[in-house]
Structures are given as structure tokens and as C-alpha cells.
């Protein structure tokens, strides 16, 4: 348990490590909310789930390689590289399967998720049998563990998240057209496939950046829940995206903070629970069209529309 003095130091954020970790979690939440907005609009949410789960074999193999070459098996960049590589492999497998006749996207996504996550679990079991000691640290990647993050890890997470945010903002206009009317984008001469590939890489980036804080199972929730909640508050995409980033950031900071206070509770589920609570409130109080409040507010002009 935490002593009174420790509790105070956590609440008042005196500890540098805690401050940096919360900052990192906030940046990650914002990036996930922003990238996730377009993912949800393009109805590609399940892709994020597949990419998330598919990082596990990459992490496990990177761990084994690091052990074999005598490096530190906890090396963050090494494990992140492995995670990104196997997420990209998963994306490629999904695309390849969809080119086969009679394979639909959802079936392809679920098959790749199952196969790669299964492979990852087996690899994890092998690592535990090897008994190299530090295998326990890998659990942090599955359910997220803010507590085990160093300030350096948090800075890395913040930097990756910031990079993803900048790229998404720079391509906001193009991502908007692709999401709303892909064919218009095509006719305007936009490189639609390359832009879609960029969106995929952004999802991989957020997933890999969020491995330590949120974990690979729940990262999909950080990409999907904030935009779903934000949509209840506005009918305009730039606002939806901004609210989504804000909800993601608040969830990241609050969840990480609670995790730091409740010593030992995994941060991933806590961050997601905060986001889910905000989603619940948005369902009740949101003001966009079609929401409980928006419907009442919008009913009069709607009738007028039909009367014209």
C-alpha cells in the first residue's frame, strides 16, 4: 500500500517520473483519438484490433533475438521494432487474403488476428519455459503497465504520439475526402492507396507507442471509444476530431494517474475505463444530431425540411 507521504507526492505530481509518464499517456491518448477518428469513419476499427493483437509474436521474437545476441531483452526500441514489424505483416496478410475470392474482410481480419495472437501466446510460453528471468516484463505489453515505465520510455511514447498527431493534422483534408467519398478523392487525383497505407502506418504507430501504457489487447479501445464519444457532441469533422483527441488525452492522463495511485493495477484497463465513462456521459448528454438532446433540439427544423 501507499503511505500518506507517497500518496501526496503522487497527487501533487512532485515525482518527475510520474509527471513525464502522465504527459506521455496524455499525448498517446490524443494521438489515438485523432488517428482513430478516421479509422472509425472508414469503418476500419477491427483492423486496429488485428494490428494490436498481431504485435505479440513480433514482441516475443524480438525478445528471443535480443536474448540470443546477448542484448538487454527489455530493450524498448528492439521490442517496439518487433511489434511494428509483425503488425505490418498482419496488415499485409489481411490484404493478401482479401484478394482471394470469397474471403471477406471481417473473416480475413479475424483469421489473421487469431493466427498471429495464437502464435504470440505460444512464443510467450516458450520464453517462460526458457526461464531467462525477465520474461515477466512482457506482461506489461499485454495489459499495459505505466508503473514499469521509465521517464525515457514515456518520452519515447510522447514523441511517437506527437509525430502521429502532426502527420494526421497535415493530411486532415485528404483523410477527410477519402473517408467521406473515396471516389471523389480518386477523381481529384489524390494518391488514395498511398494515403490509406499512411493511415494504416499511423494505426501501427499508435499501437506500438501505446504498448507499454495501454497494452496490445485494449489499444483498439483507445482508437475507437474517443471518436465514438466525440461524435455525440458535434456534426463537424474538425470538431469531432478535436474532441476525440481531448477525450483520448483526458482518458490517458486520468487512467495513468489512477494506476499510479492504485499501486499495481494495470494502466491499460484503467485508461480504457475512463474513456468508456466519458462515452457513457456523451451518450446521455451529447448535443449532436440524433443524440438524446440533439433529437429534441433538431425536431422542429426537421419537420420544416420535409414541409418544403
Amino acid at each position: 500500500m501507499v503511505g500518506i507521504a507517497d500518496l501526496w507526492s503522487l497527487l501533487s505530481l512532485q515525482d518527475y517520473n510520474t509527471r513525464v509518464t502522465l504527459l506521455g499517456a496524455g499525448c498517446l491518448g490524443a494521438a489515438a483519438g485523432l488517428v482513430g477518428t478516421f479509422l472509425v469513419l472508414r469503418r476500419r476499427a477491427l483492423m486496429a484490433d488485428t494490428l494490436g493483437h498481431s504485435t505479440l509474436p513480433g514482441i516475443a521474437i524480438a525478445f528471443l533475438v535480443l536474448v540470443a545476441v546477448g542484448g538487454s531483452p527489455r530493450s524498448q526500441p528492439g521490442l517496439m521494432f518487433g511489434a511494428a514489424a509483425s503488425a505490418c505483416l498482419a496488415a499485409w496478410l489481411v490484404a493478401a487474403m482479401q484478394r482471394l475470392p470469397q474471403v471477406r474482410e471481417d473473416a480475413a481480419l479475424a483469421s489473421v488476428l487469431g493466427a498471429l495472437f495464437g502464435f504470440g501466446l505460444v512464443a510467450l510460453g516458450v520464453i517462460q519455459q526458457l526461464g531467462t528471468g525477465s520474461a515477466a516484463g512482457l506482461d506489461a505489453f499485454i495489459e499495459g503497465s505505466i508503473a514499469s515505465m521509465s521517464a525515457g520510455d514515456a518520452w519515447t511514447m510522447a514523441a511517437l504520439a506527437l509525430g502521429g498527431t502532426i502527420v494526421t493534422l497535415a493530411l486532415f483534408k485528404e483523410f477527410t475526402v477519402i473517408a467521406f467519398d473515396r471516389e471523389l478523392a480518386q477523381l481529384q487525383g489524390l494518391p488514395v492507396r498511398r494515403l490509406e497505407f499512411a493511415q494504416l502506418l499511423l494505426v501501427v504507430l499508435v499501437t506500438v507507442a501505446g504498448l507499454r501504457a495501454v497494452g496490445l489487447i485494449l489499444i483498439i479501445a483507445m482508437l475507437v471509444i474517443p471518436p465514438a464519444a466525440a461524435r455525440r457532441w458535434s456534426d463537424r469533422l474538425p470538431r469531432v476530431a478535436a474532441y476525440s483527441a481531448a477525450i483520448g488525452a483526458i482518458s490517458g492522463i486520468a487512467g495513468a494517474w489512477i494506476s499510479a495511485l492504485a499501486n499495481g493495477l494495470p494502466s491499460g484497463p484503467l485508461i480504457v475505463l475512463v474513456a468508456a465513462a466519458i462515452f457513457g456521459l456523451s451518450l446521455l448528454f451529447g448535443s449532436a444530431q440524433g443524440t438524446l438532446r440533439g433529437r429534441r433540439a433538431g425536431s422542429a427544423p426537421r419537420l420544416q425540411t420535409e414541409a418544403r
Partner: protein
Amino acid sequence: MPSPTSWKPRADGAPSPLRVRGLTVAYGAEPVVDDVGFELAPAQLVAIVGPNGGGKSTMLRATLGLEPARDGAEVEFFGRPLAEVRRRVAYMPQREQIDWHFPARVIDVVLMGLYGEIGWLRRLRGEHRDAARAALDRVGMLGYAKRQIGELSGGEQKRVFLARTIVQGAELFIMDEPFAGIDAVSQSIIERELEALRDGGATVVVVHHDLVSVLRTFDSCVLLNRHVRGTGPVGEVLTAERVADAYGGVVPLALVEARQHERFHRTV
């Protein structure tokens, strides 16, 4: 009234807005569109007519690269491949292809028509908003500029997409069923705007089901059922024999009546 126009390329040598040769689209063994060819004259209202499943939408979409055409097809816009003249061509999709819950207002949808010319890393400016508002005004939707698009009726949605197409300032407009499922008000507004575009020198190609409306409003047409069954001025193409040929032996009664009406007025 339809003005009979020459179907040949104009004498001044200006290239046709759309010239198609040997266009075939097939998803299975049977082609949906088979060896289609035609050439449009400038400044015309052109209807693509034919029975359901006759390949009208597919054919137009294939010219734009939105459906896969078999090798060997020749499609030229103003004498060039589409990639070189994108700004001169605008396309209006069917409403079924759009997610009407998308977080966008009416004005946002029209503005998207300008994204191509605004370019990478640049923001919308006041002139773009002015252009979008002017386009909405033309289709009588300016008062709805701030509505979420899902709030509109079918005809209003069509008019917003017409505004998005108009705002692109193209010289060739390709529209997939702009008249499907709309009320009389929207129908007359859209007809008026298509005529205005034509009178401004643009060519407007429209997939259309209502043969009577084609006879009344359009200059020329392409009669299509897998193959081209006739091209030219509407009065020449939409004869009972040709329509029966294209529609598998059936001539819509409304067409017969419309033509009789026309003949009656001509003799009086």
C-alpha cells in the same frame, strides 16, 4: 426543345469532351458493357438511357477509371487521358454510395469538391467558402448550409451533390442518376441547373431513366443495353423501334404517349 446537332466532331477541330472506343467491362465471363464507343459533341445535355442492368452507370464509371475496363479501351477527355484534365471533369455519384451519418454539414460537402484544387497542406480560404455558398445558392440550398447532411430529404441531398459538382467549375459533368427518387421541386431545379451548365458551354452527361423527361429536356442521348443501340439527337434515337430493341421488345407506354403528343403539336 431538342436541337438536332451534328454527331460528328466539330469542324473547328476542338476535341470532343468525351470520346470512347472499344470499352468493355466484365466481372464474370459475360461483359456488362461490351465494345462500347461514342463521341460527345460540346455544349450538350446528353442522356445515357437503357434498361436496368444495361450497363449505363458501369459504362460511365469505367470511363472515369472507377470500374475496371478491359485492355484495349480508348477513353479520351478533351482529346487527352483523364489524368491530364482532371480539373475539367466533374462526377456526381449516386446517393447510395454515401454515408449520410458522416459528421459533415452541407457546406462542408460542397467544399470537398474544391479540395483537389486547394492542394496539399493548404487551408480553406474565404474565396472557397464564397464559391461553395454560390453553388448552394444555385441549387436553392443556401439556407441549409449549416445542416448535417443526414437531415436532408433525398432530393435535397441530390441538390447538395449537384452543388459539389458545379463548384468544381468543370467543362464536362458526368452524373449518375441525379433524378432518381426525388420530388418535383428538386427535379425542376436540377433540370434548370443542368440546362444552365449546358448554356454556359459545358457538356453534361446524365444517366436517366425517364424517357419522357429525356425527350423534353435533353439534346442527345446514348441508348445502351450492353452494346450501344443508338446515339444522336434524342428525337432520332428514341424511336419506338430502337427503344423496343434496347428494352427487349417493350416500349414504355409513357414514351409512346409523349411522342404522340409531340407529333400532335407538330401537326397543329
